[in-house]
């Protein structure tokens, strides 16, 4: 059962089209919503005239800020208006919501909502946000600062003085669009018990419920959130998208309402991965020992807080990668701008930080004449290593084992030549990413297991609110319960998609569900089993699992215990580069992951391969672009995604199983990790092939060609 590559029960319905996604829930007779967007990045609303829109035949209502009981929402800081009242802060801000009999009337009416704006000065990027005279997006946020932190350890000045070599570089990363298959959609109504019911897709039933209840000023038990099949998420459904709009319209109009977003609405208005500018300096001794790291990380948080505060903390914590450094001086800063908000995305600040840190380790190694693998081995985290925040790592530090596995596999690779005129190189990088919530955020998952039968257990019903965003968590929960109970998979039934019928399992994020919710299911199953043996019929148990506590980081120096579990990874990439055009083709990917214990091996491999495709897109071509607050890439003709033809012909996943002390059967999370080392491994491979260093991603052909030319001209340092 545990480790078996059981096929996904939901696969056939998803392939044949039988499965209902949120867009499939729309029924005849429902009213349809359409959103009036700001369309301008920063402006004061002088007046909104909805009379012409309301007069359009078929239009039932036009809602504005005055119709929202509590007009603020947000995951951490409720700073985003549901419908803007005074100021719009990015082009995707919502100004009004049309309710009509049919989608065409609703859309047509949006053009008739007349908004009188007074444009305000634009804060176009982080540098503009930092300017002393910059206009403030949120008056109560001086300096346009969403969050600032510093982490200091040891004596950085002495560390740099002790170094035989010091290298500095500035790295830049771009926004990334989640590009899940299914754009946001859903339906909502008020049921016979007077509860507001929202059926949609998201990543955390109970958090969606909390925010909707707050908006409508209702007790949480008057709100029911249900998830249909979820067409991918990757962090992109963590912030409310259509959930609150559906709830508001159904509540105010007392109608069944539906909202199905177009792709361009989804792309132009929803949060993205944070673009970072990372200025960093690394010092090392001749023997390869890293003596000091300084880094300043600037993140464009966009118009609203979203999860910027947590992302910049994670990024800053990982500014030294997975290396033990005695002397560090790190500063992280997330800033408000008039750009699309940045928020959660697979990796959550970790890929950006480690593009810089892993690249610096490789550059130091090359400068010192040390093999990059050997350089890593001398500095990698090991059991008991101290993090920049000054505490020992949680037990189970396996990054060295991941690197060794990659190096062993690398030695077995067949030799072949690149196409004529192309150059081939190999690059290696490691990675670390936390599993679960960090910095003292309350972490828990709760599950209820009920066992029934006559003489023997015939059936187990597991209740826990885990969102299966496509990663296979529903099957994983059932496999864990079946294994704990000694039942066949078919005897285990899971109820997971209804906030009124399940206990809170937390979000499908931070690679946490298998560990946290899986452990709650495991423990609830064993507790129910004990009651079964005590002759309870049916035997029922509810267990809340809370992993080791974490703490916030101290304001002065960042001291604290940030995380309770880490996932470790290492990768090697074989890359062909056409120096004439700058085109890169990834030929081979070796990707090693310590997953603690694979619950379903096929699903783990699927997660690795899927994340690698996303990583390849992020590293090579995906570049969400804004200029002057306007979106330039709101479709797949302008925002380039990798296809099957872009993927490496050879992908070798290596699954290591060093049991985690908290996860069920030793499992730890893994779904974000393949994204972490990919871009720096690619940059290292490009350097190996051409001598060029890339400091900016995506590494488009144009940028690679320019870097190759600079390297050829001898302008580059080693």
């Amino acid at each position, binding site marked *: 059962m545990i480790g078996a590559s059981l096929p996904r029960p939901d696969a056939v319905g998803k392939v044949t089209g039988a499965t209902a996604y949120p867009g499939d829930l729309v029924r005849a007779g429902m009213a349809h919503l359409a959103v009036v967007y700001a369309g301008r990045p920063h402006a004061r609303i002088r007046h909104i005239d909805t009379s012409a829109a309301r007069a359009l035949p078929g239009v039932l209502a036009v809602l504005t800020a005055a119709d929202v009981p509590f007009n603020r929402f947000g995951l951490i800081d409720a700073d985003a208006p549901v419908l803007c009242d005074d100021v719009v802060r990015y082009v995707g801000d919502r100004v009004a919501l049309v309710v009509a009999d049919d989608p065409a009337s609703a859309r047509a009416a949006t053009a008739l909502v007349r908004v009188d704006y007074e444009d305000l000065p634009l804060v176009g990027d982080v540098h503009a946000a930092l300017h002393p005279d910059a206009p403030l997006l949120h008056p109560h946020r001086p300096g346009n600062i969403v969050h600032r932190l510093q982490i200091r350890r040891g004596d950085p000045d002495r560390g740099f003085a002790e170094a035989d070599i010091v290298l500095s570089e500035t790295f830049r990363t771009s926004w990334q669009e989640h590009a899940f298959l299914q754009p946001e959609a859903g339906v909502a109504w008020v049921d016979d018990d007077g509860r507001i019911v929202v059926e949609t897709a998201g990543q955390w039933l109970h958090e969606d419920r909390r925010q909707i209840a707050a908006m409508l000023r209702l007790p949480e038990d008057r709100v029911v959130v249900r998830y249909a099949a979820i067409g991918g998420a990757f962090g992109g459904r963590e912030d409310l998208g259509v959930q609150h709009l559906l709830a508001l319209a159904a509540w105010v109009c007392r109608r069944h309402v539906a909202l199905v977003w177009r792709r361009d609405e989804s792309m132009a208005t929803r949060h993205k991965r944070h673009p970072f500018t990372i200025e960093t300096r690394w010092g090392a001794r001749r023997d390869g020992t890293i003596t000091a790291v300084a880094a300043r990380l600037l993140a464009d948080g966009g118009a609203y807080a979203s999860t910027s505060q947590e992302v910049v903390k994670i990024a800053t914590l990982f500014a030294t990668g997975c290396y033990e450094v005695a002397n560090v001086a790190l500063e992280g800063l997330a800033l408000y701008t008039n750009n699309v908000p940045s928020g959660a995305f697979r990796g959550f600040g970790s890929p950006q930080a480690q593009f810089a840190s892993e690249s610096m380790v490789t550059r130091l190694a090359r400068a010192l004449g040390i093999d990059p693998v050997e350089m890593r081995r001398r500095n990698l985290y090991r059991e008991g290593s101290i993090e920049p925040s000054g505490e020992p790592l949680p037990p189970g530090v396996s990054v060295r084992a991941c690197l060794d596995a990659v190096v062993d596999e690398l030695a077995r690779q067949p030799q072949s030549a690149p196409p004529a005129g192309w150059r081939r190189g190999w690059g290696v990088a490691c990675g670390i990413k936390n599993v679960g919530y960090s910095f003292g955020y309350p972490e828990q998952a709760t599950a209820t297991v009920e066992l029934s039968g006559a003489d023997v257990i015939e059936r187990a019903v597991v209740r826990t609110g885990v969102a299966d965003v496509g990663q296979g968590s529903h099957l994983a929960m059932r496999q864990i319960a079946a294994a704990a109970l000694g039942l066949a998979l078919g005897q285990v039934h899971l109820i997971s998609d209804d906030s009124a019928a399940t206990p809170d399992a937390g979000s499908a994020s931070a690679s946490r569900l298998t560990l946290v919710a899986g452990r709650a299911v495991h423990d609830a199953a064993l507790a129910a089993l004990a009651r079964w043996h005590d002759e309870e019929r049916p035997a029922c148990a509810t267990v809340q699992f809370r992993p080791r506590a974490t703490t916030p980081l101290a304001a002065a120096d960042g001291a604290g215990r940030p995380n309770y579990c880490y996932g470790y990874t290492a990768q090697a990439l074989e890359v062909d580069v056409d120096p*004439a*055009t700058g085109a890169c083709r990834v030929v081979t990917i070796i990707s090693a992951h310590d997953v603690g214990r694979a619950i379903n091996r096929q699903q783990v491999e699927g997660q690795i391969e899927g994340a690698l495709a996303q990583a390849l897109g992020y590293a090579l*071509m995906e570049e969400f*672009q804004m200029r002057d607050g306007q979106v*330039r*890439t709101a479709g*797949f*003709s*302008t925002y*380039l995604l990798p296809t099957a033809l*872009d993927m490496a012909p050879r992908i070798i996943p290596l699954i290591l199983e060093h049991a985690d002390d908290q996860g069920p059967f030793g499992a730890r999370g893994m779904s974000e990790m393949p994204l972490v080392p990919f871009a720096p491994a690619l940059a290292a491979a490009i350097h190996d092939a051409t001598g060029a260093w890339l400091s900016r991603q995506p590494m488009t*052909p*144009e940028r690679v*060609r320019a870097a190759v030319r600079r390297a050829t001209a001898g302008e580059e340092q080693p």
Partner: protein
Amino acid sequence: MIPAAFEYFAPGSVAEAIGLLEQHGDEAKLLAGGHSLLPALKLRLSQPGVLIDISRVAELHGIEAGDRLSIGAATTYAAIASDPAVLGGCAVLAECAGQIGDIQVRNRGTLGGALAHADPAADLPAVVLALDAAIAVQGPAGARSISADDMFVEMLTTALEPNEVVTRVTFPVLGAGEGASYAKLKHPASRYAIVGVAAYVRLHADGSVAAARVAVTGAGPRAERQHATESALVGSAGDAAAIAAAAELAGESMEYLGDIHASETYRRAMVKVYTRRALEQAVARARG
């Protein structure tokens, strides 16, 4: 994404189509494969009152082989790409047509439509220029022939007079000592040319270059001949050094269009790279 209302005609002959064009004037647009026009209609970038669908006019179809290849304007890319006479006598044309867009585009898009629309990133104008094809047109004043060199005036603008219809395009049949090639840097999503280069060469018996025609599409507002490259190559040995030197001269006097996918600087560099690649292959083919 719904076009404005229009009136629709499907004439049975070119003469009838010209009559309709004269009758409706600026209101009317010719519809062939529709791969450029229909998106423009749906986005309401274009709102003609009248569409004249010439895709089923019999005299605009068909490929006639002889000393030269004569191809009806309404012939689809797919038909060109798979035609034995084209594959045998003018393989570069089949190659080019066979890589345009995707299968759906190739099954609908037409030769005449591509030339008349003159999209700056379309592939076929480069091949038409490099092969010195002749474009037969018919209008109220009768029939005439436009040489490839005169056809592409500026972005989306050709030498066609109002109410003229492209009827056929005539390509040479390549023989011994001749070679042609099309090399392209394609946009990853649309597969339009970011830079497309078509090259034609004819060699003397001693292997030196007797004639060369090179044309670039995609990089700028219109498809354009590269005379400096051609002149440098003619009379040379046609070896790698000569090709590289000639390719360095490509794109020097062109106007460029940059966008979020490729800057003007990058396109300028890629014109040289793809000119070299197209010429190397054309010469290799000419040598047999």
